[in-house]
């Protein structure tokens, strides 16, 4: 075990590249997320955010570069190993198990948590937070409304009690009142020292809750630093977030 006196980089990427054939989706991105931190990853459509997250998770191959988690090189580790080590993900497009019920989805989400008490506590907690899931508990998840599915996807990745979660556009498709609940939840989780990597199109909200932020465009990082700095930088914001399709 390493000494714990300074904030450790929990997740560290070093010059990660992701390519799909000729398409260079991510070009040499290095970033880190420290324990207990909320880090926002922003960028317009096609910036490469999802590709990066998928690469961290190991479901999309990394062309070059390394990923370290808790000091260990996990570049080549399988997704399931990473989840067992404590990474949780709520992926783009929700990807709930449509042919399973809500209950079964949650149960699978918790399957890497050996402690039954924790599983039950978490389930209780998220069903309280998203009461619709309780109502639809035994319904096939595929028939849920879009927003309901999103709530399920977020709950599912938290069920196991991960050390870090990566949320890919968690507010997508949610009604404003639920979006607020999500950001409250993020703040709450942050207070409980859960580490979060947050991909959001809802830049203002994301930056309000984040400690630090990265701005991505065309596969490269254009900014990294305090979230508040990015929020105030009208320049950057309008250039990258505002003129996305200019080029």
């Amino acid at each position, binding site marked *: 075990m390493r000494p714990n006196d300074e904030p450790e980089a929990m997740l560290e990427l070093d010059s990660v590249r992701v390519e799909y054939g000729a398409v260079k989706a991510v070009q040499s991105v290095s970033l880190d997320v420290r324990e207990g931190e909320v880090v926002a990853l922003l960028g317009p459509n096609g910036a490469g955010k999802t590709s990066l997250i998928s690469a961290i998770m190991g479901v999309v191959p990394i062309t070059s570069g390394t990923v370290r988690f808790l000091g260990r090189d996990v570049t080549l580790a399988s997704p*399931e190993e990473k*989840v*067992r080590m404590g990474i949780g993900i709520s992926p783009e497009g929700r*990807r709930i*198990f*449509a042919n399973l019920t809500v209950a079964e989805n949650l149960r699978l989400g918790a399957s890497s948590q050996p402690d039954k008490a924790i599983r039950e506590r978490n389930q209780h907690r998220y069903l309280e937070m998203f009461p619709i899931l309780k109502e639809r508990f035994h319904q096939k998840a*595929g028939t849920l409304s879009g927003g309901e599915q999103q709530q399920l996807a977020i709950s599912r990745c938290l069920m196991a009690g991960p050390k870090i979660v990566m949320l890919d556009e968690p507010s997508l498709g949610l009604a404003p009142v639920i979006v607020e609940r999500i950001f409250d939840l993020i703040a709450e989780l942050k207070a409980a020292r859960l580490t979060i990597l947050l991909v959001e199109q809802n830049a203002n909200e994301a930056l309000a809750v984040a400690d630090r932020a990265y701005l991505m465009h065309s596969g490269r990082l254009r900014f990294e630093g305090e979230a508040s700095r990015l929020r105030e930088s009208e320049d950057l914001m309008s250039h990258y977030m505002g003129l996305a399709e200019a080029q």
Partner: protein
Amino acid sequence: MEYLAQQVLNAFSIGGNYALLALGLAIVFSVMRLVNFAYGEVIAVAGYAMFAFFSLTGVDHGLVLVPVGILAAIGISIALERVAFRPVRYAPAATGLLTAFGVSIVIRNFFITLVATRSKAVPTPQWLGQHVDIGIARIQLIQIVETTLTALALLLLVFILRRTNIGLAMRAAARDFDMVRMVGINANKVIMAAFAISGFLAGLAAIFIIARRGVVDPFMGFGPVLKAFVAAVLGGFGSLGGAVLGGFILGALEVFFQIALPSSIAGYRDAFVFALVSVILVWRPQGLLGVKHQFGDKDE
């Protein structure tokens, strides 16, 4: 009356065999969307393993040979998953079908070139070939054992798929393999487990088929598996209860047409069976036990 009872029993046992195989096909289909055309060869492998063991050691006791057959079927099933089906896991359905077909050619020709095209005798437990007279019918032990085992296998599978994490993961992996991994489950193992179960069922069915036929040959699995495939779809592919029901219905249809058609057109039996199956499928495309919901733009 006695005659009828006897034929009903026959239908149950023929259906039971289809049902076992249909279950085995359905479980692989439900985790991988794979129509395993090589399933017949898994049966053949079980048979040849028994044959090889018997001719090498001379041991012909059922208590030894039966496990040998079942283990061989499980083994080959797992091996095939590993070397042949894993690489095409993400591929379109037709690709899996063709791979399975390729595998079946390889295995079949392996036996043809290295053993023989001719059938080879395999001893099976003597008592399976016996019969008891109960009341109105003469029941062959093999018929009772097979029907009972089919029921047990179904119950066990339903339990696994509904109640255990690995079962849930199997159903989930069918739709989104990567997502299963992203909740921390070793999805490879899950799929392997499905193949193991499927192999086990094939091994079981193989014992019964061989007990009836007395021999193994390279083509022995094709017919039963074809029927089982139809049975599985008839019942609702992916639904285990459906697979079993489909198996029994197909068994009943076959027996019915066998005894009901006058001998001048009895040769058309399979045409009648398949025509009736088609009618049922047109009436219920989702299969007998498959449920049809309106999904709108939602996914099942």
